[in-house]
């Protein structure tokens, strides 16, 4: 009997250990880990181009993460992207003339929303919309511009061929 009891205890331990491991992986190594926001408030921003911005991408201010992208929708009437972001309640001092920009971490990294604080004494509240936004910088546009503006008649010929494949590769 005691033999059987010890099997049961050991098996129980094994199952608990397994589920703990699964729970740890599911909550601590995934985007769920960023869902620690106890209470948040929502802000909106419109962009003409959001690039590769995705749901749950970080929202940063002065390089510090203060929230995440909640949803991205295409607005049929305005023909632009409406991005809803949730910001941690602790950071409720964002001036209402701040600007939101879709930025890229590093040269080829993931995109996130950076908020540039303004100087207004009024703060943004739940449901407010950013007036000033700056769309995603498209690398291929940059290269195109650089090559066009860059000197040399021969190079302008190259510019077409160099810039054309880039959008395909980028999308």
């Amino acid at each position, binding site marked *: 009997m005691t033999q059987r009891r010890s099997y049961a205890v050991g098996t129980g331990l094994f199952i608990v250990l397994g589920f703990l491991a699964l729970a740890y*992986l599911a909550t601590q190594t*995934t985007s769920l880990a960023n869902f620690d926001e106890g209470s948040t408030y929502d802000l909106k921003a419109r962009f003409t181009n959001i690039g590769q911005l995705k749901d749950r991408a970080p929202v940063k201010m002065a390089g510090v993460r203060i929230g995440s992208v909640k949803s991205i929708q295409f607005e049929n009437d305005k023909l632009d992207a409406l991005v809803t972001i949730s910001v941690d309640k602790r950071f409720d001092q964002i001036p209402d003339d701040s600007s939101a920009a879709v930025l890229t971490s590093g040269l080829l990294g993931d995109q996130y929303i950076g908020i540039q604080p303004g100087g207004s004494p009024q703060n943004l509240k739940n449901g407010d919309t950013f007036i000033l936004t700056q769309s995603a910088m498209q690398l291929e546009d940059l290269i195109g511009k650089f090559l066009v503006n860059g000197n040399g008649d021969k190079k302008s010929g190259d510019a077409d061929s160099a810039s054309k494949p880039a959008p395909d590769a980028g999308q």
Partner: protein
Amino acid sequence: MSAQAPRRNFLADGLAQIGDAGLFLPALLAALPRSFRYFRETVRQLWFVGAMSLTIIMTCGLFVGMVLALQLYHVLSIFGGTSSTGTVVALAVFRELGPVVTALLFAGRAGTSITAEIGLMRATDQLSAMEMMAVDPMAYVATPRFLAGIIAMPLLCSVFSLLAILGGHLVGVTWLGIDNGTFWSNMTANVDVWKDVIDGMLWKGLAFGGVVSLIAVHQGYTTPPTSEGVAYATTRTVVASSIAILAIDFVLTAFLM
């Protein structure tokens, strides 16, 4: 006799095995309601099949994570992307290495012992003895082991993957000096609970657990009752399981993506 034994046709042999195992599955499932009476036996098998495999699973998980981080760090440093080491380790482990390596180890550790044990029970008439004592060996011996395998695999997968990530952390952060915060935040930003963790650990784990224990139980149950037969069946469990794991992994990956 043996001199004139017909040359084995491996393809036909393999197909016959698959068909046989496929027919064995309904019998296993039919015995399921009756096996609930032997719940204790399932618990006991879970101990042998699951808990006793923990050591090898944890050790291997740790090393897989460590070597993965080491390799990735050197490759990624060429592009200046070492901060993604954690992400790539986690994704590789969750999506492929965790379930597949765990299943292969499981086939070698638990699958063989299931086959050998049942085969030996067959060879020493223990299964007949149970039949004679009015105990259905299908419900008492086969189904509990099959169930235990299915339950154990996702748990073992999770433990393996956790250790792999800790191993990657050990090498990447502690030894190679990637920033701890970067390691985790990059990982958490790119790993998805459903697509990566649940698909990999749970669905792949369950599928592999089911396939490996089906093969192991089937091979043991139908082995010729000789020591040679048991040895051959044990080998076949490993070979068939390994092929099945990798083939099913491909199908599942295509399906889940």
